[in-house]
């Protein structure tokens, strides 16, 4: 059981980073990105392709970050002319195009994916699980610190102004396109970094990890936890991840059919988002307004 808890906590750390990345975009800057999983995908496939090409680990990190920065910059460019709802659908479409392409091409391993990546800290057995959890936790704390710094900075104020009053931000001389580009690139790097860690944790990378349902799971984390509150979204990530992980146990205790697991997870994500949007749109930990967070 403790191995299982360590596993769920490790994955929660990864999702915590993704939630922080999405929070920079959607929470602070008002960029409604439904294609976050594609940026994460740059991370996992950067690591996987480096493995397939026998590059060293750092080569994979470089490939992952490079792809994520390019994709993030492209999405930012796309946002120049689109209002948030159009942009949201465009990002969702691009993520789907990437998933379908990855599934159908040979060099990405196709539907089988790429397996046999090196496991982090494999030689630390039996303490390797804790070692990975420690590393993921440390990276999560670092990401949290970075996101807090950004939110508290003058640049963070400009992000929030752009979210609330884009016209005013422009009128006050803020370079709105530049802010969007920088936010997208920073959060793409965070998402890709979490992807590299994930790939070297599962040691397997496949197109099933690129489904849009994952994007919505991350959305549910930031909405439940508290959009535009970094501590809130990490709390949301931990809560949602543990809730998802314990669904199969509920199924076993109640003796329900296997379909229940998939249905309950959909219900947790969709219902969680809907109920919070309707009843408590600010989330569990609301955004702190009025003072530098």
């Amino acid at each position, binding site marked *: 059981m403790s191995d299982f808890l360590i596993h769920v906590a490790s994955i929660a750390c990864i999702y915590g980073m993704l939630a922080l990345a999405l929070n920079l975009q959607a929470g602070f800057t008002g960029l409604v990105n439904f294609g976050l999983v594609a940026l994460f995908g740059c991370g996992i496939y950067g690591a996987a392709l480096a493995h397939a090409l026998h590059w060293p680990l750092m080569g994979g990190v470089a490939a992952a970050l490079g792809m994520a920065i390019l994709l993030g910059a492209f999405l930012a460019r796309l946002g120049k*002319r689109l209002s948030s709802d159009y942009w949201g659908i465009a990002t969702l479409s691009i993520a789907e195009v990437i998933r379908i392409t990855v599934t159908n091409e040979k060099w990405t391993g196709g539907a089988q994916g790429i397996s046999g990546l090196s496991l982090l800290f494999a030689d630390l057995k039996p303490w390797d699980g804790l070692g990975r959890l420690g590393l993921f936790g440390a990276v999560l704390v670092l990401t949290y610190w970075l996101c807090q710094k950004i939110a508290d900075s003058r640049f963070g104020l400009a992000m929030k102004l752009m979210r609330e009053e884009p016209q005013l931000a422009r009128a006050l001389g803020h370079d709105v396109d530049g802010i969007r580009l920088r936010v997208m690139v920073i959060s793409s790097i965070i998402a890709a970094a979490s992807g590299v860690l994930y790939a070297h944790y599962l040691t397997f990378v496949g197109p099933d990890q690129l489904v849009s349902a994952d994007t919505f799971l991350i959305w*549910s984390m930031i909405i439940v936890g508290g959009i535009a509150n970094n501590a809130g979204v990490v709390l949301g990530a931990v809560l949602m991840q543990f809730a998802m992980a314990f669904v199969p146990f509920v199924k076993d205790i109640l003796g329900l059919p296997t*379909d229940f697991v998939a249905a309950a997870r959909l219900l947790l994500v*969709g219902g969680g988002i809907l109920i919070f949007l309707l009843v408590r749109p600010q989330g569990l930990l609301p955004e702190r307004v009025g003072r530098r967070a």
Partner: protein
Amino acid sequence: MIQFLSDTLLRAADLALIAVGLSVVYSLIRFPNVAIVQYAVVGAFLAISLQSAGLGLFMAAAVAVLAVGGLALMFNVMIFERLLKADSAIALIGSLALSMVLMAVFLMVYGPIAYRLQLPVEPPFRLLGVRFTVWQLVTLGVSAAALAAFALLLHRTRLGTEMRAVATNAALAAATGIENRRIVNIVVFVSGMLAALGGITLALRGSVSIDMGTNLLLPVFASAVLGGLGNALGAIVGALVIAAAETVVTNTNLGFLVGEAVWFLPASYAPVASFVILVLFLLFRPRGLFVSEVSRV
């Protein structure tokens, strides 16, 4: 060539019904309710369930269409009216969440298996050298009739005039004595009916399973954007373009590109065609093929 036209028309007919529903609601409340593709699935499942409960095919379809209209109205009043007070992007997130909840319900009630309507088997026949089944022609006819009826409603009735007035300038429409909320409710009801009809025509030609809505989402959305979101009849043209693109991508022999005699793209690339068209349009012509009254893009 005729084969290509018939493939395109059949696909476009399904997309158009749902895309028109999406677009006409957008014209009034300025947010794309993507859950509409799940309303189509609800319509298809309901019709199948009602038919297996003993109703005739026509009655089952009619009841399902009305029920989904009511469901769309209920969700709009309960969820989207409230979310729209915050922001249209929030309402969009809500509609994606509603889609997931509906999928969870399908999974609980129907499971992952595919269902079909019980239809008498008719031998296919040839028309202009192309093989058709009776049900393909029936769905084409139903779609065309529904779209024509909707166009008449929009352009030849007092209700349609009021709908267009609210879409163009809601405040002014209210000032002339139109009850905006009543118009929105009617339009939402009609959009649910159109979506359910689209789902049922799909069920008439094939099977229905829980991923049908997800597979419809992006082609339908691309059709609506191409036609200019909010331009209801433009969505029909958008659906034709998307359907043609999908058919071309999967049915063109690309052997000359790879140096082989016969080489086709995998069929799973069909949706990519619509996504790529969608993204290109959003980049270069976000107001769609026709410039409509949509100014906020």
